[in-house]
């Protein structure tokens, strides 16, 4: 441990010490459950040890996937007058146009013992319906992509705050010595739309120490930036170089006594190990045939969502704390009948496979999986009611996600929206609540995980958020 770690730990201890009256033993224990701190406290009591967040960037439509609205068949084509919107914001894209109710062209059926209603677009998910918890009553604040994704990631619409993965890494530390605690992977969707920008700040550490930032694993070039030795430097050469620099660094440490020097040696060694472990991890050729049957043939192609799901499982096995996938291309303003099934084709089988795979390995109980986008879509069509080419605009007031494993009650559907999926009528779950619940599953009290910056204690949920007890196992 270096001095900074020491300071960090002191900060957390000090915080916990100061507020120990108010903090549950759960959070206290798990806050300290860092590898380095394991001796200081017992094991974490949270059900989940890690999170796999399957972020669907662009915002998938709830009407075509998880929020069945049969009434729309009758109301199809009806004009929604201004009174319907109660002065709510609409995007510039449809603010001026006529708002005609648009039904979904896809069939929904009840699945599993739980009778979860899932559309025909997600047949594989339907097969694991009893393992997931569908939340139909998600709510957010932002109406445009970047602020909405930023809000999901950091609890704030403007850039600059730490991302949820960074908070988790800061709060729980790492369980692996060969890999970063927070790993991000991105895949392109099959829809042909311009994709939303995904900036590095979305998995940044904000004002937290930068060691907690997400590390993006790339599918092309080096999987981690600068991972590969340059041409002309072999692994044995690298070993020689490190041996010498470590030896010289150690001598330097003897002179100046700065623990930071020792950390530098350790980090260079970790880098060296990563040079071997990351390519190993990324190389899925040794996976048995049935893995690819489960995740689909796409899982053989690096950079696909399927390949990333498989990697997510491998990362989970290695003890990576927060694994975040982004799948782009869900922004169906038009041509939904062409693009949405294509997107579902990308994600349905691998997402379901991930659940099954983790379950088979006995890891689903301590892995929290979350699947969903940054907001929902409108009940009215964008660009006319042509059912071959219709689309839907952004809608922040309700949308659907699903969760599985890691302390979440399986086989339930939580929350209800009105006939238009315009408003939540039962059990709203705000993004802040999702954050609070996610941290709770990890054994962390969202109100206690704070960091002091510029004179204020910040937390992921700001001054909001409530744990949604109803969906806890």
């Amino acid at each position, binding site marked *: 441990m270096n001095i900074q770690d020491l300071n960090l730990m002191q900060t957390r201890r000090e915080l916990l010490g100061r507020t120990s009256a108010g903090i549950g033993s759960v959070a206290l224990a798990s806050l300290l459950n860092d590898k380095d701190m394991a001796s200081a406290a017992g094991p974490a009591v949270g059900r989940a040890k890690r999170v796999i967040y399957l972020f669907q960037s662009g915002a998938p439509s709830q009407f075509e996937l998880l929020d069945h609205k049969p009434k729309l068949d009758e109301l199809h084509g009806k004009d929604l007058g201004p009174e319907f919107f109660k002065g709510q914001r609409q995007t510039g894209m449809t603010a001026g146009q006529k708002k005609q109710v648009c039904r979904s062209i896809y069939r929904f059926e009840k699945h599993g013992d739980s009778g979860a209603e899932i559309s025909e677009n997600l047949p594989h998910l339907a097969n694991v319906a009893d393992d997931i918890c569908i939340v139909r009553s998600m709510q957010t604040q932002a109406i445009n992509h970047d602020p909405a994704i930023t809000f999901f990631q950091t609890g704030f619409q403007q*850039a600059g705050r730490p991302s949820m993965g960074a908070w988790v890494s800061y709060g729980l530390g790492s369980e692996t010595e060969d890999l970063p605690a927070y790993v991000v992977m991105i895949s392109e969707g099959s829809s042909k739309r311009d994709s939303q920008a995904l900036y*590095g700040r979305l998995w940044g550490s904000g004002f937290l120490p930068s*060691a907690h930032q997400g590390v993006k694993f790339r599918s092309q070039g080096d999987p981690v930036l600068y991972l590969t030795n340059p041409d002309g430097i072999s692994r044995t050469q690298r070993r*020689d170089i490190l041996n*010498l620099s470590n030896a010289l660094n150690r001598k330097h440490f003897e002179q*100046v*006594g700065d623990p930071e*020097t020792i950390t530098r040696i350790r980090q260079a060694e970790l880098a060296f190990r990563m040079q071997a472990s990351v390519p190993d991890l990324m190389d899925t050729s040794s996976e048995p045939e049935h893995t690819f049957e489960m995740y689909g043939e796409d899982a053989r192609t690096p950079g696909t969502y399927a390949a990333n799901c498989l990697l997510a499982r491998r990362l989970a096995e290695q003890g990576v704390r927060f694994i975040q996938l982004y799948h782009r291309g869900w922004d169906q303003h038009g041509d939904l009948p062409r693009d949405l099934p294509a997107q579902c084709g990308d994600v349905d089988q691998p997402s379901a496979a991930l659940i099954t795979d983790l379950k088979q390995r006995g890891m689903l109980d301590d892995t929290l999986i979350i699947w969903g986008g940054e907001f929902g879509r409108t009940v009215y069509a964008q660009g006319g009611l042509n059912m071959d080419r219709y689309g839907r605009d952004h809608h922040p007031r309700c949308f659907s996600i699903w969760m599985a494993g890691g302390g979440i009650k399986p086989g339930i559907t939580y929350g209800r929206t009105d006939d238009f999926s315009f408003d939540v009528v039962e059990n709203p779950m705000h993004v802040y609540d999702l954050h609070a619940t996610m941290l709770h599953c990890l054994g962390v009290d969202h109100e206690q995980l704070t960091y002091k910056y510029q*004179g204020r204690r910040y937390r992921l949920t700001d001054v909001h958020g409530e744990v949604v007890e109803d969906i806890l196992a």
Partner: protein
Amino acid sequence: MVDSLSRLTQTPAAICVILLSLPTLMAEPDFDAVKSLLESRCLSCHNTQDRKGDFSLETHEQMTDSGQVSPGSPEESGLLQVVLSEGNEAPSMPKDGTPLTAAEAKVLHDWIAAGAKWPASVTLSQPAVTSFDWWSFQPIRNPPIPDVQTDTASWLTSPIDRFVLDRLQKKGMQPSDRADRRTLIRRVTYDLTGLPPTPAQVEAFVNDKAPNAWTKLIDRLLDAPQYGERWARHWLDVVKYADTCGYDKDKLRPNSWPYRDYVIRSFNEDKPWTQFVQEQIAGDVIYPGTSDGILGLGFVAAGPWDFIGHVEVPESKIDGRVARNLDRDEMVTNTLNAFCSVTIQCARCHNHKFDPFSQEHYYSLQSVFAAVDRAERVYDTDPKIEQRRRELTAAQTDAANKLRNLEKEIADAGGDELKQLNAEIKTLSDQTNPKDKRPEYGYHSALVKKNNIAKWVEVDLGESVEVTHIILNACHDEFAGINSGFGFPVRFRVEGRINAGDKLQVIQDFTGSDFRNPRLIPVEAKPAAPVAVRFVRVTATVLAERQNDYMLALSELQIFDSTGKNVAHGKPVNAVDSIEAPVRWRKSNLTDGIWPQAEKPEAFVKLEKLQDTQDELLKHINTPERMQRKQHLEQARDKAAAEIGKLPKGRVVYAAATHFNRRGNFMPTQGVPRTVKVLHRGNIQQPLDEVSPGVIPLRANSDWKLPLAENHSEGDRRAALAKWITDPNNPLTWRSIANRIWQYHFGRGLVESPNDFGRMGQQPTHPKLLDWLATEFIQSGWDVKALQKLIVMSATYQQSAKMTPEQIERDPKNSLLARGARFRLPAEMIRDNALAISGLLVKRLGGPSVRPYQPPGLWKDVVYSNVPKWKQDHGDKLYRRSLYTFWKRSVPPPNLQMFDAPSREACVLHRSRTNTPLAALVLMNDPTFVEAARKLGERAMKEAGQGDEERLTFIFRLATSRRMTDEERPLVKNVLARARKHYSDRPLEAKKLMQIGESPADDSLNVIEAASFATIATVLLNLDETITRN
């Protein structure tokens, strides 16, 4: 329900003592205590605006209505019950804060028990901190220099040391010895120039026997041009300088670099800090006619800017107003954080919770920046042209201001009567919305830039018809807030003819005077006697205004024959032109039988009358004199703009600007400040009172409004703020800069929160030293270099950084300064260091940003449509100092980011210094460092003679400023031998290594030797010692 008294006593045991004697001690409670409790613990949610839980506690009446208080019955009062705990459960209120103490709960209990009396006319308000009893607000007094004694030689060379030693001795600690000369020259060269000393410089200093050797060294470094580059980098972090705008689109900002160069030059010229501050806030006003006066304004514009919120969304929309509010917030925050170390931004949504700043103070500061935006601004290096440009801009602003005053004068002349009339007209207009609005709006001509271009539209009845009267129905479109009467002509004629070639007969002429917008009242045109026509035409001679353009629009034209039948219905329509944008706009809509009809037609009758009155009133107000004045002013404004357009183009800097070319919805204010109001909870939709320009109070009852003349210009506001900041008596400014400069020499400030001197910030570790430095700084004429010299001349600065376990134990952060500071070099310096050592560094100052090596695909990974591609530069541009590397906020240079370079999206005052495997990978594998290593190896072969010993020594001296030790030698030589063997067996590998990076390998050198020395150079570039300032 548990009796509340017993629950009171159930809570913390210590409190029971107080409560045991409760019944007897219950006296008439003091309302002030109740008031302060309610204000501080309840009112932030239960106020008139928010009414959480649907009640407010601001007034007695509201408290009674709330039903939360039953006077005389604490047990039945919800207010008390919710703050008490039930068993082990935490109380449910206050929702987000610590529970009330038992003593506090008792105050409420007693007050309710005694009847909950509320003195008449007392209204509660949310708490504001008013106390100035805090170190940073106290005047800077030149503190006496402590009288201390010590045996340590070389100590006490400066008053600084006496302050430091005084504290150390009080803690029973001893300072460290002076560091050796090699360490010292390395330390001070990094600190002052950001680059390593050359071996020759090291030897010269080490061997310099002159007593003023150190002074000479300092003077040389302060005079080096690289000094400005090094210190500019600190400042650019504070102001969040970058080459893109940030936010979603992160558009390029191609002209921000002249500000960066201005900062470099200002440091190199040792510009007095007052001037530097003033130029950056109001250089155009305080230093008119100078290019630095404009360039400095890049400060105001340096931070991120929301392209969508400004360009794509108009200021009239909520999102547009939010964007502009946040933009001003950024300006205020940047200014006050950077110069005064005050977290004023905390007062945007509520009064500052810890420092004595109210929302009104905060918004008064916003008002200082109410007229400026971030945009490109011309500056001239020719003072004559700069002067002319300034005069013309002043004339333009003057005219714009006078025009606004004239409008106000006209409004005032109408007095309350006109105001009331306008309000009533507005209310009525809102009632005249159409019922059942259909999407088929009507006919819409093409847009033109002038209102006097005639436009016509006509109906072909197919045969000659005896027409008795014609009705024109206006359109309704919310565009630009116009609504009813959209596009209805201001002057027009209704005409007709039987054959297409005939002369048009006038049916009725409306061109004699302006026709008042009829909104949705049908307008009738009637010939003197029924007239036979086949074509009926409406010709507009003066068009309606839309948004900076003009056009003709009509919803329906009805033409009646003598039987009263509308013969126009469904008939074909011709027009001079038409925008044809179905379904809303098309010619055929004019006769489709669809037009907007008013919901409450009776409102029109009233409206007519009111408008008659208004017309009458305006006739008196819009006197010919005023109208003429208006015309003159408009001409003056336009003439100045035209003249500016004719000036030579000048150069451009991205800066605070009031005059610039419109871009979409992003329009210049022309120097006319926007209205700024206090916003409840920072919400743009809940404006409270308007504010005038002001600052923050520095002591109780101090005047915090800026002294401005009634007719002041917007620039006067900024100038007044700049002068307030640079007032020698402002205690914040001088402590702030003295602390920053200290921080950049020691790795941490005397105050560890350099942007926050408030109660949530840190207190100074050496308050007297800080004040002494601030005083010296003021007395030196705000001379930054002099202050730095003062600091580096001290024994405190020159101490050895060696850490003993005892020191780490007693003072891990080194806040008492018992040793020298030691920290890893910041990102830019790690790269610059490698470039300098290898001889690759190109030392040219300034110019547009450059794009050195970066892994492929990084910009593409985040791409948003239409964002330019990353294109790597070549040649010299690969080897400039990192300060010049192109900075894209969303994708900062990765090899710098791994060493904690900030993204420049939020202000970073204190870069973290992490130590991660990702950073280790940069040093190992980034072509920048591999190339530097092979060039360093080549240098050793070419410059250091033939032997291994000489060559290795050469590399050591360049990288670490010292020779190889006897202990190190065998280890190094062993690896060198292994590398030789490795590359001898694999000459192709050696060749490949020597081709990393774009600088050509020196073919005259043996490639196996070159690769082997490159291996050693790699080790040296990776060393902790090499990348650490010791």
